[in-house]
Every structure is written in C-alpha cells, then in structure tokens.
C-alpha cells in the first residue's frame, strides 16, 4: 500500500507541483514571520541590553497615568539637586542626570531626517562612561552652545562628518549646530532607525525641560554593594512622585515596548500566512478531490483485490501528509531566506541593526510543519472519505452510485459556516487577533467546501478552461471529471 501511495504521488508531477506551491507559500509566510520576528526580537533585546546594562538603578518621575507601556509613560521631571544627594548615598559609585526629548536632524537638502515612524531622540550627552550608553567613535563630546553629537547611523546614511554644520529641529524653529562628534550605542550605529542627537546638559535642559530639571538620573553602584540596601537608601532621599527602579526594570519596560511594536508587525505577517494557507488548503482540497475522482476506479480496484477501507483512507491521507511535509520543508527554508531578505531590506531603508545571528527557534519548525502538514491532511480528509465510500463494483462497472446529502441542507449549513468565518475574519483583522483570523479562514474554507458541490459545475468549467490549456491531459481529465460528477470537485 505504501508503494501505491508513493507511485500515485509521482505519477502526477505537474499537479503535485501546483498543489505544493500553495502550501509552500503559506508555510514560507509562517516560517518567515517567526524567523524575522524572533531575529528582530533577539537583536533589539541585545541592543537594549547594551544600552542599559551599565545602569543599576534609574531615578525618575512616577508615571502620571497607569499604562501598559511604561517605557513611553508621561513622567514628571526630577529636580537636578537630587543628583548630588544620590551621589552621597553609601554604595553609589556614580549618578548622572539626563534630560531628553524630541530632536530631529535636517538633511543637506533641507528635509527632516526620519526612518519610518521611529522616534527622533534628543538627549543630554553624559560624559561619564560609567553610566553612559553612548560612546564617541569620532570627534569629541559637546562642550558649548550649539554643539551636537550625531548617531553614526544618521552620519553614515546622510554623509555628515565631524566639524560640519547641521540643522536640528527642536520644539521651535530649526537651529544650526556644529557636529563635534559621532557616537554609537554599544556596537550599533543607531537604535533600529531611531535617530539620536546629544547636546550639553544645559542646552538639553533648556530645550527639553526647565533649567535645573532632569528626566531621569542613572545610578551605578560600587562593585559588591548590597543593591537592595542601596535602592532603599536612595528611595529614602526621594521626594513624593519620584521613584527608583532597577536597570532590569527599565530594560524589561523597553523590551516589552519593542515587543508590542513587533507583535503588531508579526500579526500583519501572520495574517498573510493564514490567508495564503487558506487559499492553499482550498487548492489542495480541490486537487485531492479531482485526484480521488480520477482514481475512483483505481481505488475501487484496490478494494476489490482486498484493500480495506482503512488502508485506502490511509493511503490518500499518507499521500497528503507526504505532499504536506515536502512543501513544509521547502516553505520553512524559503521562510528563512525571506526573513534574511527582509532584514537586509530594513537595513537598506535605514533600520541599521547590530549584526545579530538569524534566530531559528525549534518552535518555527514545529509550527511550520504542523500547519503545512495539518492543512494538507485536513483538506484531504473529505476526498479520502469519499474514496473509501466508493463501492468495489465501481472498478468494473463505470456506474456511479448516487449518495447524497440533500442539496438544501448543504446550501444552508455551508452558508452558515461561511458567514461565521467572514465575521470572525473581519473581527480578527480589525482587532487584530491572529487566532480569530485563523478561525475565520478555517470556517470560510469549511463553508466553501460544503457549498462547493452546489456551485461546482459552473465554476469547474470556468476554472477548467485555463487548466485544460495549461495542464494538458490531466487538466482536461480533471475538468471533465468534475463536470461529470460535481461532488468530486470540492
């Protein structure tokens, strides 16, 4: 029986290729989405880690409103005088204040520089390497009025170098600054497309806050200090409305903020994945219906010479599983390539990321194969059941035995399931909720499958025409077959 299955698959290479294509596309999306988002997540995490790894604590205003995105919460400023008090707390090695806000470079052609929707950040330059995430790779730190340090990403893509003048948009009109240095974050040229302008603290305070106010104070403890005790000691110095959190908390907040951005991105990609798998599943359902239709006599002959229903059923499903597995393998591979390609594209668009390895989680392979094989096998269940119901006499006589769910029941149940699918799909896309999209696609697929026999004849003649031209004899056979017995086409 294994022989019959394998040879049945190989006997129809063109049809096989077309069937596989649909699943390959779907699995490529699934695998590509996972690889890309895993890789981005990993890269961002490493990036945020290099920025915040030095900091043991951060002192900042408490969030003004409860929020799920702590990294972007609205916070009151912190008085600058606190810096000296914190420096005096036993166990504190260094404490430096930072003022930050919005600052956007202007290109040589006079256009504001931004990459996509990423923020353009202005910050006071912290010269203390114990607390600072920025380090100068060229030139020197800002020392006077209208000095600015530029992130290496912007400098590279817009060809600015040390000593040149550059326009910067702060809250008001564009002002002209002198580039005194070019800086990197850890090993990255910029933070995934976020542009960065660093000024002297007084200039930043004037631009972003009030004189003698700060946005936060970064704290580093002496090696071996009892951090919990230090945190408590700092907390005792703080006025109402100011909090001290660990560097890890800041890191987690930033990461979860990035994840929220990424999850929207991956939702969009997964929606594509489900749509293409839905189309793929439908294609497979049709292909297997036609295949089984064409092979009614062959399968009935197997029944005549002693194949049990279960053996025939398994043979059709095994065929589907093999086709699904092969397609999933190709799709998973293509997904990795697609992810690498997309990452290269992002970098070409200015989202320069630190060089990070492609992340290929076991989960990616498992989901890609489960989805690829699952969709194929589930699509083949209907045709396989029909194959099993073929009476053995059908091998010898060419008479069809007409067995039927009433067409009205078919129409009503098919329409109902399909409608539920449309609603779920629409809701899933609007929210967006991937689970709902998947459910919607599955329902639409099932509904269409139930409805199909009622509309198969007009449809199959339309679909069959180009197929007959394309596919030669097999296509023609499939078309005649599905015209003759509409229930054979989906």
């Amino acid at each position: 029986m294994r022989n019959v299955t394998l040879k049945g698959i190989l006997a129809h290479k063109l049809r096989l290729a077309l069937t596989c294509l649909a699943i390959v596309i779907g699995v490529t999306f699934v695998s590509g989405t996972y690889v890309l988002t895993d890789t981005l997540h990993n890269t961002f995490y490493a990036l945020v880690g290099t920025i915040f790894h030095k900091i043991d604590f951060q002192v900042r205003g408490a969030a003004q409103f409860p929020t799920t995105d702590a990294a972007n919460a609205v916070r009151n400023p912190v008085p600058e005088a606190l810096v000296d008090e914190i420096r005096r707390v036993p166990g504190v090695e260094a404490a430096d204040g930072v003022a930050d806000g919005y600052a956007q470079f202007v290109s040589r052609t006079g256009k504001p520089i931004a990459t996509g929707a990423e923020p353009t950040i202005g910050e006071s330059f912290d010269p203390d390497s114990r607390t600072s995430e920025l380090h100068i790779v060229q030139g020197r730190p800002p020392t006077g009025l209208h000095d600015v340090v530029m992130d290496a990403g912007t400098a590279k893509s817009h060809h600015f170098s040390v000593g040149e003048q550059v326009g910067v948009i702060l809250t008001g009109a564009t002002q002209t600054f002198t580039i005194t240095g070019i800086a990197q974050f850890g090993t990255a040229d910029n933070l995934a497309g976020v542009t960065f302008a660093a000024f002297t603290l007084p200039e930043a305070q004037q631009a972003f806050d009030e004189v003698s106010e700060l946005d936060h104070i970064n704290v580093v403890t002496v090696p071996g200090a009892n951090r919990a005790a230090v945190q408590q000691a700092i907390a005792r110095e703080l006025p109402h409305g100011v909090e001290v959190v660990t560097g890890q908390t800041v890191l987690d907040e930033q990461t979860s903020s990035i994840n929220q951005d990424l999850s929207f991105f991956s939702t969009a990609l997964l929606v594509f994945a489900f749509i293409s798998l839905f189309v793929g599943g439908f294609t497979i359902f049709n292909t297997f219906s036609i295949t089984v239709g064409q092979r009614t006599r062959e399968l009935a002959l197997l029944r005549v010479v002693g194949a049990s229903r279960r053996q025939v059923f398994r043979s059709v499903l095994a065929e589907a599983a093999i086709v699904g597995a092969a397609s999933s393998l190709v799709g998973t591979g293509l997904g990795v390539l697609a992810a690498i390609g997309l990452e290269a594209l992002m970098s070409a668009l200015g989202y320069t990321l630190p060089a990070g390895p492609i992340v290929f989680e076991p989960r990616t392979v498992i989901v890609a194969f489960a989805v690829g094989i699952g969709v194929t096998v589930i699509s083949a269940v209907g045709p396989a059941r029909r194959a099993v119901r073929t009476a053995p006499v059908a091998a010898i006589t060419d008479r069809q035995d007409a067995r039927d769910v009433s067409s009205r029941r078919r129409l009503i149940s098919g329409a109902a399931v399909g409608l539920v699918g449309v609603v779920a799909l629409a809701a899933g896309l609007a929210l967006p909720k991937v689970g709902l999209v998947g459910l919607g696609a599955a329902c639409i697929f099932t509904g269409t499958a139930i409805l199909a026999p009622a509309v198969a004849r007009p449809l199959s003649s339309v679909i069959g025409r180009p197929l007959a031209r394309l596919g030669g004899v097999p296509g023609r056979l499939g078309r005649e077959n599905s015209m003759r017995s509409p229930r054979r086409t989906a």
Partner: protein
Amino acid sequence: MTTLNQSPAEATAAQASPAAQAVGLRKTYGTGGAEVTALAGVDVAFARGHFTAVMGPSGSGKSTLMHCMAGLDRPTAGQAFIAGLDIGGLDDSALTKLRRDRVGFVFQSFNLVPTLTARENITLPVDLAGKKVDSDWFDYLVGQLGIAGRLSHRPNEMSGGQQQRVACARALVNRPELIFADEPTGNLDSNASAELLGFLRRSVQELGQSIVMVTHDPGGAAFSDRVVFLADGQVVGELYQPTPTSVLDQMSRLGAQSDPELGA
C-alpha cells in the same frame, strides 16, 4: 489454507460444500417504475475443482451474479455461499478479507493498478494482507504464465494478453478457493485468448483450482467442464463436457425459446 477461523465441523462442512453457491439470489436496481431486475431468483452451485462457464445474452445478469456471489455487491434477497460460508452475514471488513484471501478476480479490462509494475500488481493481495510472498509459488505462476520477463513493466508497457496473464497471476497468488473471471478474454485476439484459457484449464486440472468464468464465446466455453446458461436473471439451462458445437446448439435453442416470450 483459509484465513477465517473455522471449527473442525465447519471445515468438514466446507469440504463437503460446493466452492460457491447461490440460493434464491435476487438483485434489483432502482425503485418504483425505474426498477430493473438483474437477478430474478438464481439457484446455482459451482463445484470444487471444476471449471464452470456462465453464458447468456448481454444484460442477462451474468456480471451481477458474479458480483453478488463474490462479495463485491450485496444481493436484494437470497443467499450466497463461498465454501459453505454465508457471505450475506459478513460486514465490510470481513468481506474485504474474503476477497483478499479466498477469492481471485479477473475482469475484462482494468485489472491492474496503472502506477504499479507487473510484479507489484501480482503481489498486491499479499502485500495488502501484510504477508510475505511465497516465492516458489510466485515463480511457478509467472513461469506458467510466461510473464517472468515482464515483471518490472507497467501495465501500459504490456500487451492486452500479458496484462490479463498478470491479472491471472494476481488472482492466484493467495491460492484462493475460487476464481471469478468476467469475460477475461473479451478484449483479446484468438491466440492470446487460447493461451489464457489454456492456463485456466491447466490450473483446474493440475492444481485443482475452482473457476467460474463468464464468456460470450462458445469456443471459450468449450474449455470448461460445465456451462450454465442465464437469461433474464434466471438459470435457463446447463451443459456438461461442452464442445463449441454443443454450446452453439444450446444457445440457438434457448434463443428460439425466449424470442417469442420477449415479443421482440
């Protein structure tokens, strides 16, 4: 030799009973005005170790009789026995096993799975049973049938005669109680027909095989031990030790009898 479990008493009964038997077998297709009676109460027994031919006009119910007796189709009424076993009481999976292990089939056409080689087609019933092929028996069969050189060929790479001989080997590979052949030579030229019929004849004589064969050809029927004549779904005559002439005689007598009744 059989795979179904039998008690000693049953085995003795099976030994005593004919290879296949029909009792009051009826089969109707369709309902109401469109009802067609294919078998109108057939009582017939096919003896063990005999070669029986079934003849009759087109539409007389020959194929239907075979299908109902071989467990390929269910009769509307009456009983069918294979070696004393009432197959009406078997469920689908028992019928499948019966076809696989105890009955062999040769049809007029489309006997072979197109994607499999001759060898794979022949061993299909054994493979489906998950058993090992008896290679001595296999070699003997393909030798007798003269297809040893064709075993790696696909059906579409073989002549009609070769295909039918492969089908015969397939029918015999599980050493069945009985072989049903429905016009096995219907698509063959006279040489290929004679070869195939000669092989069937020898397998009855030398191996004690029981065979029931539907045929249109008086010359073919003459290879058998006995001819059973069907008309309008009923047994209308029989003939032992037939010759082509005696078969023709009988056919024309039956034709003369039934013509006025049909009112054609």
